[in-house]
């Protein structure tokens, strides 16, 4: 199936996922158009991480379908490399390579996975580090960077693969309140450039500001969704209301 930009770039239909006896996703469906920013919110353990990990094939699914730019992620013969060239992912714990400098972290995947020319990769990597406002930290090791700086390096590392979609899993949850903002600004810049983003977040203010669409998950299902204006003002489901009242 070839994908055209008028179709959803990501299409998730009735996805089921269990870990042993525990059913974590119980039929989740959502569509994301190119350039859209969507936020997934919901209580701990509701399956948010599992859902976005299914999108880039870190978790497999047991039922339903996921397509990303026409790539069928649920297919057992999935070409994982093709998928991962399209989808970048940023984790809560940054997960940088601790034995590589910030610059090397950013350069590694284009060199090893895309087998691109080194001089060109380095030029782009330096530009990306500049873009996430980390000039001067090129030769620092992750252990020498603050949490926020590490997370921005991780974002640059994902961007170096030139993905079409970025997944962010609670990327500010491990940060000090002061450094949260610098990471959010970086993500906002990306969104403004038209990057398709899926964010799992607890930052409601940020979600409200940045998201085109908000999904609320609870116990493996999407309970409610809508654009931020209606979602925050007129959430109708009692579970959503309770969650929002606790967090806002």
């Amino acid at each position, binding site marked *: 199936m070839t994908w055209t930009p008028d179709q959803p770039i990501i299409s998730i239909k009735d996805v089921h996922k269990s870990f042993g006896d525990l059913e974590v996703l119980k039929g989740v469906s959502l569509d994301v158009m190119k350039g859209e920013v969507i936020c997934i919110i919901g209580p701990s353990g509701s399956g948010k991480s599992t859902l976005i990990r299914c999108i*880039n094939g*870190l978790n497999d699914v047991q039922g339903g379908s996921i397509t990303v730019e026409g790539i069928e992620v649920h297919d057992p013969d999935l070409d*994982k*490399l093709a998928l*991962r*060239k399209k989808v*970048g*992912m940023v*984790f809560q*714990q940054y*997960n*940088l*390579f*601790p*034995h590589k400098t910030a610059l090397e972290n950013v350069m*590694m*995947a284009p060199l*090893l*996975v*895309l087998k691109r020319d080194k001089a060109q990769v380095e030029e782009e990597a330096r530009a990306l580090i500049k873009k996430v406002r980390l000039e001067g930290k090129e030769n*620092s*090791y*992750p*252990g*020498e*960077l603050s949490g926020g700086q590490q997370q921005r390096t*991780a974002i640059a*590392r*994902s961007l170096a*693969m030139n993905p079409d979609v970025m997944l962010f899993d609670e990327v500010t949850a491990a940060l000090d309140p002061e450094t949260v903002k610098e990471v959010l600004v970086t993500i906002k810049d990306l969104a403004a450039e038209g990057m398709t983003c899926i964010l799992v977040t607890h930052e409601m203010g940020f979600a409200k500001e940045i998201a085109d669409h908000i999904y609320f998950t609870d116990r493996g299902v999407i309970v409610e969704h809508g654009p931020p204006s209606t979602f925050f003002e007129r959430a109708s489901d009692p579970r959503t209301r309770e969650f929002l009242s606790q967090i806002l």
Partner: protein
Amino acid sequence: MEWIADLARNLAEIAPRWNFIWLYDPVTGGKILSGIWMTIKLAIACLIFSMIIGVIGAWLQGSPSRILRAFVNGYIQFFRNTPPFVQLLFFYFALGQLTPVVTAPDGWTVQPIITNVGWAIISLSFFAGAFNVEIFRAGIEAVPESTREASEALGFTRTQTFRYIVMPLAIRVSLPALNNNLVNLVKTTTQAFGIAVPELLYQSVTIWNDYPSAQYPTMLLLFVVYILLVGVLVMGMNKWERQMKIPGYGA
């Protein structure tokens, strides 16, 4: 240097059990030197091969194939739980029988394609390699799953993840244990004596069989040489450890 030889000669006369013969007799002196050289070659070869075996074994242990994993486990169990000296004898006498022969350098006689030195290297490398697999595996397990996932999410293959991410981090964790095992390996090379590999212990024994008066001094020499060899190894390992240190990472 002549005064040392004289001193040794005089000492042998007044104290007949303390004949440092290799200090003044060029034949035994030559044996000691060639013994030391053989020991060094043996140790270096075994160090290199046992590390290669360790890395490959640890890699195979992470393989999706059950059969491969079981095979590596069997290998470890066998070499870890049986005496290395018996392994050496078995390799040399039993397996040595099965290997083909080639014409020796003299052009007349035949010799096995794998010499006793070859078997010593093979057997000792597999022995120390079994421990190295375990050591590297422990290091690999210390690498967080999330780090591996990050490289997977970037599109690295399993082999690339192992080579560029997991192994460099695992080695750093493994170095202290590796250090111990390699020190043991250097000392265990003396077992090659059992299959007549002309390493330092073998040469020493031939010397004190010919000159019983030289036995104690030669034993002393053995201690001194091994202390020096192990000292060099430990210094090298410590240097390596310092070079591998990552700013801001680990203790």
